[in-house]
């Protein structure tokens, strides 16, 4: 449902890997802005259900 498919290829890595781990964190995202979601439609209602019952997406999937 929330998946997309791209035909593009990911880049090949060459050179020196910058960390010990295979995952390297560089920087956080730009600070998000608080805005108001319009409370209607099936997808918002699913969001509201997760938020009110403190459920995650995967818990919600089950």
């Amino acid at each position, binding site marked *: 449902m929330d998946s*997309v498919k791209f035909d593009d290829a990911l880049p090949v890595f060459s050179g020196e890997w910058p960390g010990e781990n295979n995952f390297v964190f560089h920087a956080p*995202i730009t600070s998000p802005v608080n805005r108001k979601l319009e409370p209607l439609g099936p997808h918002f209602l699913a969001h*509201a259900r997760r*938020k009110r019952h403190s459920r995650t997406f995967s818990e919600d999937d089950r």
Partner: protein
Amino acid sequence: MSDSSAEQEAGAVIGIAFGNTTSSIAYTSADGKAELIANEEGDRQIPTVLSYLDSDEFHGGEAKAQLVRNASNTVAYFRDYLGKKYSEIDPTNSHHSAHPIDADGVVSFKVVEKSGEEPSNISIGEITTRHLKRLRDSAADFLGKEVTGAVVTVPTDFTEAQREALVAAAKGANLQILQTIHEPIAEALAYAAKENMQPEDRTILVVDIGGTRSDASVVSARSGMYTILATAHDYETGGVQLDQVLVDHFAQEFIKKHKSDPRENPRALAKLKLESETVKRTLSIAVTASIGVDSLADGFDFHSSINRLRYEIRAQKVFDDIMKLAEQAVQKAELDLVEIDEVILAGGSSHTPKIAQRFRALFPETTPIHAPFTDAAALNPSELAARGAALQAALISEFDVEDIDQSTHPAVTVAPHLSKSIGVVVVGADGSEEFRALLPAQTAVPARRVAAFAAPAEGGDVVVKIVEGVSEIRKTIIEKKEEAVNGEGEVEDESEEEEEEEEEEIKTKHMKVDKLLAEALLKGVEKGQKIEVTIQAAADTSLNIAARIVGTQQGVRGVIAAP
């Protein structure tokens, strides 16, 4: 709500679009389709008008017809007065019907309800109650069921006081308002239903062009959730102004022939207005329309006709104002026109071909303009708000009031929205690095997106670069092809500029990498394999990243800390 569950099962919930000019009612059928409901007269577009004559109350089309002979006992254009003090309203639109009066600060209408009796003051709240009661009764008649609740659309600038006044007025009509929702979002939802509520990401411009006002909203739809980025309102542009263009045109013709101005006689003016509106609607589907009014003024009959082009030239200022409003909303959202993915034209005046054409010309060819004239599959713009309300009514029909209140509470609705798009770097066709968005800017968190990518052609070690991307507007100058339309007059207003300009600037939107957030390494990927990347943005705005080679145990996980 405890004892009403049995009642609710027997009853129905409906959607109501309550406009200053027209109202409509809709329900969602068992197969999930929203349908408009026709009232006893067969109207799906029900004039928001009540009229009192000989102790009877008339509603809708029958009441509107009385604007000619019984104007002072006919109440029209009142929705925007609701929940306001007398000192706060602009009564301009009521100059030719029962005029609102100040009854201790409360907006009221003085009408003769019972023939032979003194006129009575009906408050705006009471008028609204009576109107909603008629709508509720029409729906109940049509559905053959009690109506237990309604979702009602309101403009985006409706205040909390107005909302409360609406809920109270409905209560007086024994109608429970389950929820009030914003018109442009209801309109977008009506279109989303057409595509089975697919959770697509789009930035939508909704322009609602009604009778007495026009409203433009820039709405971001992300994973099927809607956020209003900006709105703009014009209370002096709409169908009334388009009617006036025709009234003035016909009045001038009448003056030429009979040396008398029909606009100076209230009854003649009212007739001319009604007939001009009919002509205007005809010109939405035909290229010429005729008008015939017996004994319009001074005993003279009036017969004439007008073609669409002439009407469009006369109405140009109104069209210009609508375009200005739309551009203003896009500017307020700090977006470029090319960043709008689709345009929804809503409201009755969106039937007007020239308005749809003007939007078509303003946006790139690839941007869908949903209006009857530019999109054969467009929904009826007059029905969008009611349809959206009916869909929402069906979605929450099983909820109790407390559930609805909790879901619409800021604790649930206010959420962090991403400032920039988050995605992955891929190799473009020409070998350069390109950005692919997984979570576009304005996505509310928590959010989750999964994307599948190809392995490099030769395989090898693969790097998944998680980055932020921003849009970039590129301008390209193209040679303007000679267009042999100058003689036709169709583009009369623009032809001057076009003659001077030999080349045209085309803007396009591109996404480019802005900031590297994290990198993940996947070793020894074989050619032909797929790589799946999952980004989960948590409520605290940290990101969980997972990258794996599809069909293997090999994968990498990591966290991008919150800012």
